[in-house]
C-alpha cells in the first residue's frame, strides 16, 4: 500500500510540473524583450526616473516655483529660474527653469516632488536603468528628463533621442 501512496504522491507532484509546462511563461524577458524597457514591465504607480512634462503646446509645464526642491527630503533638486520673453518662450507662465538638475546619487524616489508640483510638471517615469560607473553621470540635467515634444507638433521619440544625445535644449514650439 505504501508503494501506491508513493506513486500517487509522485503523480500529484508531476501533474503540477506538467501542468505548468503548458501555461504561459511568467518570467519577464528582460533585457531581451521589445520596447524601450527591453521587456521589463511596471505597475503604473512605479516611481522611476523623473520626466518633466510638456503641455499641449509643447511648452514646458515647469514654472520653476522651487516647491519640488523645498519638498525634497534628500535635497537633490537644483533649479535656476529665468524669465520668459516674447522671443524666447519656454514655459507657459512668466518664469521657467533655466537649469533643472536632479542628483540621482541622492534621490530616494519618494515622490514628494511629484506631489508638491502645482503644475504637474514633474512626474515619475518608469526609467530604472540608472546605474553608472561614474557618480557625476548621475546628475541629470533638464534636457535628459524632458518629455518629447508632442507628436502633433512633429516630434517623435527617435527625434527626442537625438536631442538628448546632442545635449542641446529642445527648441520651443511656436503656437499650437
Amino acid at each position, binding site marked *: 500500500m505504501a508503494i501506491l501512496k508513493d506513486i500517487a504522491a509522485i503523480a500529484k507532484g508531476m501533474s503540477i510540473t506538467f501542468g505548468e509546462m503548458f501555461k504561459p511563461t511568467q518570467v519577464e524577458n528582460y533585457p531581451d524583450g521589445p520596447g524601450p524597457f527591453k521587456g521589463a514591465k511596471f505597475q503604473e504607480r512605479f516611481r522611476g526616473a523623473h520626466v518633466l512634462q510638456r503641455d499641449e503646446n509643447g511648452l514646458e509645464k515647469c*514654472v*520653476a516655483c522651487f516647491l519640488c*526642491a*523645498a519638498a525634497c527630503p534628500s535635497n537633490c533638486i537644483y533649479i535656476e529660474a529665468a*524669465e520668459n520673453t516674447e522671443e524666447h518662450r519656454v514655459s507657459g507662465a*512668466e*518664469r521657467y527653469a533655466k537649469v533643472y538638475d536632479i542628483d540621482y546619487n541622492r534621490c530616494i524616489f519618494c515622490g514628494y516632488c511629484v506631489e508638491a508640483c*502645482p503644475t504637474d510638471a514633474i512626474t515619475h517615469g518608469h526609467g530604472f536603468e540608472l546605474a553608472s560607473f561614474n557618480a557625476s553621470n548621475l546628475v541629470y540635467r533638464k534636457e535628459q528628463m524632458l518629455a518629447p515634444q508632442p507628436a502633433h507638433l512633429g516630434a517623435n521619440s527617435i527625434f527626442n533621442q537625438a536631442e538628448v544625445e546632442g545635449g542641446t535644449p529642445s527648441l520651443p514650439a511656436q503656437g499650437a
Partner: protein
Amino acid sequence: MADVNITVDGKAVKTPAGTLLIEACKSVGIEVPSFCYYPNLSLQGACRMCLVKVEKMPKLQTACTTVVAEGMIVTTDSDEIRQARKGMVELLLGNHPLDCPVCDAGGECELQDMTFSYGAAESKYIEPKNHREEQQWSPVVFFDRPRCILCYRCVRVCNEGMDVAALGVQNRGVSSIIAPNNEDHLECEECGMCIDICPVGALTSGSYRYKTRPWEMNHVGTVCTHCGDGCKTTLGVRRADTGMEIVRGDNRDKSGINNDFLCIKGRYAFDFANHQDRLTQPLIRKNGQLTPATWEEAFELIGKKFSAIREKDGGQAIGVIGSNHTTNEENYLLQKFARVVLGSNNIDHHRTADFPAFAAALRGRANATASMRDVYNAPAVLLIGNDPTEKHPLLAWQIRSNVRLHRSRLYVVNSQPIKLRRQAAGFQLIPAGAEGAFAAFLAGEDAALASLGGSKDGWTALRDKLKTEENLVIVFGSELREGDITALVKFGSAVPGAKFLALADYANSRGAADMGLYPDLLPGYLPVAEAGKFHQEWGGIPSAPGLSLPEMAESAKAGKLKALYVVGANPIARFGIDPFVFSKSFVVVQDMFLTETAVIADVVLPAANAYEKSGSVTNTSGDLQLVKKAGEVTGTKGDFEMIVRIADAMGFDVRQLVPFGRGTRADMGQTRGAQSGEADRHAVWLEANGLELKMSPFDPMAILDEIQRLVPGYNISRLALLSGNDQQTNFAASGPAVAQKPELIVPAADGLFRSGTLGRYSHTLHSVMENKDRQPSEEVAAD
C-alpha cells in the same frame, strides 16, 4: 498718559490710553490679522481683516482704528469673527490670481498666510478673473494689478514715510487702482519701500525678479556698505558657480537701527559684487603689462620688495593708504602693520569729516554723541549743512519719522533749500560756506552775523530758541571743521542734554578715523608723538608724524617714496593725483576692480568687499555693528588675510600682529547634523565671553579683542554686538588728537544714486533714470 485696563480674550491688559486695540493685543502676544494696518503709518481701515468683538458694541469693530477705553472687553477669536475674516479673504481672492507658484512673493505673502489660517481657498465665483498685464514702473519696481488688494500701504509709506508721493490712488471705490502719480512710471527716490511693505506680490522687485524663492536663500544680516549711516540689511544669498551670489537685500525683520528702512543703495546696489569686471586673480606687472599670477607669487614679490625698501631706505619710504569701506579690524590691522611691520607713520585715508577735531571737542564728556536712534527720539534736532535726503537717507528717514510721529522740532540751517526743510519748524538759508560763521554765532560771537545775512533779530531769536531746547541733537555736515566744531560744542554745552552727530560719507569713515588711519594719530585719536599705551604694547613704533596722502604724492614725485600700499582706495582719481608721480614707486593695490589707482600698480590683489567678510564697522554716529559674511566670489581674499599674508611674506612673526592662538580650548562637538544647534549656541556663548578659539591668524575677532582692550570708547558689550545689536562708541576717553589741515577733507559728493567705485559697478544704480537726471554725467570716482 494714564493707563487703561482692558480684557482681551480673558487676559487683563494694562496699556497707555490712546493705544490702538491691535497694538494692545500684540503687547500680550495676541495677533490680530491685518493687511492695511502698518505700525507708524496713518490708519486706513481698508481691509477689514482685524475685526474683533467688543462687548456692548453692536457690530464687529476694526481693531486697527479702535482706541482702547477703560473696561473694554474684547474677543479676538470666535466663530463669528472667523466667519467675517474668511469672508474678507474670499472677497480679496475674488480677483486675485492664483499664480502663487510663479509670484515672487510666494512663500512670504500675507494673503497666502491668511488663506491658510481662514481656509477660504475655494472660490465661489464663476466669472472669469479680470486680468491686466503686468506693468513696469521703473527698472526696480514692477506692478501686477490683479494681485493688488488695495491696502494702500505703498501709497502711505511713499507719502508719509518717504515724503516722495510718487504713488497715488486713481478712481474711487471698487475701481480704485494704485498708480504712479507720474503717468506710467515712477519718478522717485527708488527706495523700494513700497515693494517691501506690499503684503502680496502686487509690487515686486526688478532685481530679484524670478531669480529664486524666499526659502531657497540663506539670509544673512549684515550692514550696508554704501553711505555712512550703517543700515542693517538682510542679504539673501544663493549658491552659484562663482561662490555665493547675493540675490536680494531687505530688512523685513526690522532689526537694526534702520527698522525696515533701506534706500536704493542698500536694497539693490549689492550687484557690484557680481559685476563682470570683478578681479578674481592677482595681477603682477611683467614687461609693463599687468598679467595674471598666483597668490604665492604675488605675496612673495610684495614681501621681498617691502622688506628690501624697509632695510635700505627705512619705513618712511613706504606709504600706506587705507579705506573707508574696510572693517574696523582691517583698518586697525593696517595701521598696526604700517607702524609695527613697516615702521612707518605714513598712513592716511580719504577723509570726509573732521573727526579728530570732533573727538577733541567732546573729550571727557560722557553721553555727548548722538546715535542714529537718538535722532528718531530727540524732541528737537538742529541740522547744519549737508543734505541728508541725498547723502544720508537713513538720517533723513529718522528725522522725518521723528517729526511726523513725535512732533519733534527740526531746525535746518543750510546753504541750499534742501528737501528736509519741508519737515522743518525753522529753516534758514545761509550763503555757501557760512556754516562755520553760524557755529561761531551760536557760540556767542555776534560778529559772525555779517557773513550770515538776514536780520540780527531773526538769528538771535533762533539762537535763544535753540538754547531752550532740551536734549537737542545737533547734526552737522563736513562743512564744519576744526574751530567750527569746537565753537558748536561750546554752544551745545550750554544746552542741557545736547548731543552731537558729525556726518561722514562712507560706510566706515568713522571707523577709519577711530582706528587711527592718520599719519599723526594712533587709534582713539592718541597723537603718535606722545608716549602711550600703543608705544608700550607694540614697542618701538616711530613717534614722528608721517606723511599725509597729498604729501605722499609729493614725496613720490621727489623720488623719496619707494613703495605705496593702497587698500581699497582710489587716491589717483579722488585727489586728482598725476599717476606718473608713482612711476618709480612700487605700488601694491588691493581692490575689487581695476580702478584708476589699480591700473598703475605693480601688484593688484583681488579683494573681497564688506558683504564678503566678517568684522565690525562704525557708522557716522559711532554705532558699532557686526558685519557678517554673506556673498563669496571665488578667487578673492579679504583685506585682513592679505595684510597678514604680506606681513608673513616679509618674514614678520604674525603672532605679534594678530593675537591669535589664545582662548580656551573647548570641545565644539558636532558642527553639522542634529546636534549642530547646540554647538552653535555654545560657540555664541564662548564668543560673547571672549573665550572662543582664535586659532587662525585670519580671525578678525582676535583683533577685535585688541581693539576693545586698547581703543578708548570701544569697550562695548560684546554679547550685544554679537546678537546683532548696535553699540554706541564714544569719545569720552579719546586722546587729545592733533589739529588736521581742513583741506584734507574731501566730501564724497555722492548723491542718492552714486556710491563711488561701488556705484560705478552697480547696474541697478545706473539703470534708474533719476541717476541720469540729477547727477553730473561724469562718474565721481572714489574709494
